[in-house]
């Protein structure tokens, strides 16, 4: 059932949503807009389409404790040290980020199940929001994502002076129950919502990157793409930083490290980037010795390996963060264009 709320009362909504659980939503952090925990003082920024990082952080945080070891004399004991499980809501997730959770589910929920991720996934409710003003860096549509009708436990729209609230799942319905009293019924506004969706889709169709074609990017092209001479040219400017990976909503590689606190050992996992020279470092060294190989790995993974292993699902959702943030303006769209063109010729 579609509900609505005057945007003036959003503060009350957030207050309610934050009762008994954490509420994460796009906030102003030193002039930047990024997801953060809501507080009454926090400056909520729903006007900016893109947060610096994605909603991935709440399901797969950058660092996470796994276990600890403590030594006493010559004895070592193992101590559970997982972060506490607690319910939370992520509000204002855009269509691309909402879809990214499907990609992460494929990785972490398949056997063997990642219990850390699973627990967070179960505890988290996703309240997505339709995009109002898509940007030129967006290309979600080529992955079949509808910016105007995102997935999520609850989907919201801001149209005019109202926030429209549309529950989609059981989790979403349960959440709705806790805030329902603030809303009024909006069943009658469905044509208004539909019109707004149409406007967004119209803009999306005019976005420059939405004309990209993914034709030829599938498992059958593995050898051909892998062996392409274009990789060296595409990667030559790459500085090997991890910006693209860390702002990416679907990158899911991590490293496990031990930290000696002086009183014991903390084993934790943290994001890792395939762009780094010490990624998957083994005794004999790095299996991908040059930046060309590391660069190729990232895009081959997103565009070829992942879909080949996951029923054609690409591990890119077209959010465009890497397009906006790469220090040298190299990104997946340039790769798709370059390698796709080669196939067509």
């Amino acid at each position, binding site marked *: 059932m579609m509900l609505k709320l005057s945007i003036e009362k959003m503060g009350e909504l957030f207050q309610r949503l934050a009762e008994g659980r954490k509420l994460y939503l796009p906030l102003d952090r030193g002039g930047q807009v990024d997801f953060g925990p809501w507080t009454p003082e926090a400056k909520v920024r729903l006007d900016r389409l893109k947060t610096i990082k994605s909603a991935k952080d709440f399901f797969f945080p950058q660092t996470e404790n796994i276990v600890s070891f403590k030594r*006493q*004399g*010559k004895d070592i004991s193992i101590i559970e040290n997982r972060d506490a499980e607690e319910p939370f809501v992520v509000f204002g997730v855009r269509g691309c980020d909402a879809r990214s959770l499907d990609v992460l589910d494929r990785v972490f929920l398949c056997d063997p199940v990642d219990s850390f991720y699973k627990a967070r996934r179960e505890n988290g409710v996703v309240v997505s929001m339709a995009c109002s003003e898509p940007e030129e860096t967006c290309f979600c549509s080529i992955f079949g994502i509808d910016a105007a009708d995102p997935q999520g436990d609850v989907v919201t729209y801001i149209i005019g002076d109202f926030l429209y609230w549309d529950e989609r799942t059981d989790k979403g319905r349960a959440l709705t129950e806790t805030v329902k009293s603030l809303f009024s019924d909006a069943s009658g506004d469905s044509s208004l919502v539909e019109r707004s969706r149409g406007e967004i889709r119209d803009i999306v169709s005019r976005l420059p990157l939405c004309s990209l074609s993914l034709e030829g990017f599938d498992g059958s092209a593995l050898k051909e793409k892998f062996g392409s001479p274009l990789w060296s040219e595409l990667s030559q400017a790459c500085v090997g930083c991890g910006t693209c990976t860390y702002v990416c909503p679907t990158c899911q590689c991590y490293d496990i490290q031990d930290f000696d606190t*002086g009183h014991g050992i903390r084993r934790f996992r943290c994001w890792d980037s395939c762009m780094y020279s010490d990624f998957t470092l083994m005794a*004999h*060294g*790095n299996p991908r*010795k040059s930046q060309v190989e590391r660069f190729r790995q990232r895009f081959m993974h997103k565009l070829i390996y992942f879909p080949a292993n996951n029923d054609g699902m690409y591990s890119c959702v077209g959010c465009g963060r890497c397009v906006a943030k790469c220090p040298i303006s190299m990104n997946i769209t340039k790769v798709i264009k370059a390698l796709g063109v080669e196939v067509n010729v």
Partner: protein
Amino acid sequence: MQKIGVFVCWCGSNIAATVDVEAVAQASLSEPGVVFSTNYQYMCSEGGQSAIRNAIAEHGLTGIVVCACSPRMHEATFRKTAAVAGLNPYMVEIANIREQCSWIHRDKEEGTKKAIILARAAVAKLNRNVPLIAGESQVIKRALVIGGGIAGIQTALDVADAGYEVDIVEKTPTIGGKMAMLDKTFPTLDCAACILTPKMVDASAHEKISLFTYSEVESVSGFVGNFTVNIRKKARGVNSDLCTGCGVCIEKCPSKKAKSEFNQGLCNRSAIYIPFAQAIPNVPVIDRESCIKFQTGKCGVCEKVCTAKAIDYAQEDEIITRQYGAIVLATGFKPISLESYDEFQYNQCPDVITSLEFERICNAAGPTKGKVLRPSDHEPPKTVVFVQCVGSRATVECGKTYCSKICCMYTAKHAMLLREKYPDTEVYVFYIDVRTPGKSFDEFYRRAVEEYGVHYIKGMVGKVAEEDGRLIVQGSDLIADKQVIIEADMVVLAAAIEPDPTARSLGTMFTASMDTNDFFTEAHPKLRPVESPTAGIYLSGLCQGPKDIPDTVAQAGAAASKVIGLLSKDKLVGNPCVAACNEPLCNGCSTCELVCPYGAITYEEHLVVDHGVRETRRVSCVNEAICQGCGACTVTCPSGAMDLKGFTNLQIMAEVDAICR
């Protein structure tokens, strides 16, 4: 994994009174790697040491921690103990629980706690120790002395007398240096030549000394005990082996317009010349700039008159490569250029001269055959003004901030000599201070004033002007608070002295550090005054700082004794706690080289293999024989490629961790 033994010393009651030694031994047993611990009344006694040796054997220890007095006290003792038991001596760490624990604290509980932490830190460090082996290097039993003045000659003679070979490299055609130019020496007034020339002869005749005159050091490589030096023997144009030193060539040479360097340009010499009569070697040199044969191709008179057939126009520079164990820098000094001192009219008036020029004028073998005559008209001067501190003690750009040290005394000498030879000459000396520390120095100066009637005026000369052949000297007399005008015939300037300009390039070549005035710096200003910070490089004479002849000779002897001490060893055992470069991490950026005070770091192109990535690139290399292990390079290295053995980053951080735990 290490097997560590911890040995806690009571030091009688010195430690045991404030620290529960048993508790320290017990507590350290729970530290990683510790397999054995004990305590003993006097760990450094034979009983204690044998307990250590036994435990090493019995428990197969790979390292030991001794909790005792300061490592400055007994680290060496316990290293030896470990070595006797077959352990690498660098697998020993000391926890200083006496000077830095039991002696400064009263409370036994607190003291024990701290001792446990200090022991823990030592264990933590030891866990990251690796056996270190000190490098050995051969000592080549030959010394090189650069500079053939009195400093170089004396050092060479002393080293040679001890039975070691010495080479002297001198850039001018003869040895003797500045001292050979002097007339008399203060305060005894004996003749410089009379005391110097026998030494010159000794040096040339010594079977262990080889002279390379008219030669310069071209390049150097190597390190203490093992330097390789290229010496450029400049072409003399005369075959030294054939020349008999008869001097006919000099006499017959038609080109006699070159200024005599030895006589400070006060008279001329021929194009083929020896600097002075007693020059050693007594072999002439052809000055190609003024030689008619070399300039026009015509002449060849010298070749025609030489019965020994020694003239060789085709002779070329020769590079001689020799190896040395030690190098002595004895590059000496020169008076500063007075060009920018317009007020004294040095450039304009021939009768305004420097003190060194005055020495030549006084000298019986000099341009005036010892008669003091004015350069302008060869008339004897009736009034002579000496000006001290010309360019010394000056902070303005053309001067030197230091006191040149010798001027007060030689000026007194000049004044005295002048008054003695020509009692009717009036002599004035303008001075700021008269500095006469030294044996019989002040007496000497007072004699000049009291017995010889030299007029000492406290003040400076502000202006010298030439008027009708006379020099009008305007100065201040601060005691009388007057401005005095003296009509003089000659003005003698005591120019500041500075290191010979060749010192700078040699300093760079040998990485011998220099101060801002280009004097070589000593390894320690008080305790190691004749050694350069760079091992194997020694300093003799004025190149280290202004000094007179007695000081120079004394320092030359001291440098020689240091050289002998080095050369008497067959091998040098290095300190293994030196810097080491981890090549795969090194960028070849040169920052480490810039901070190394010893020049121990060089760069080489190496094939670096890092986890299968092969690349030939520039990496830094530490010469372990030169490195002294200060660690300056390790901190300046951003990549952490440079580390210091025995004090590695990981070792020190382990200590920090253990202390802060």
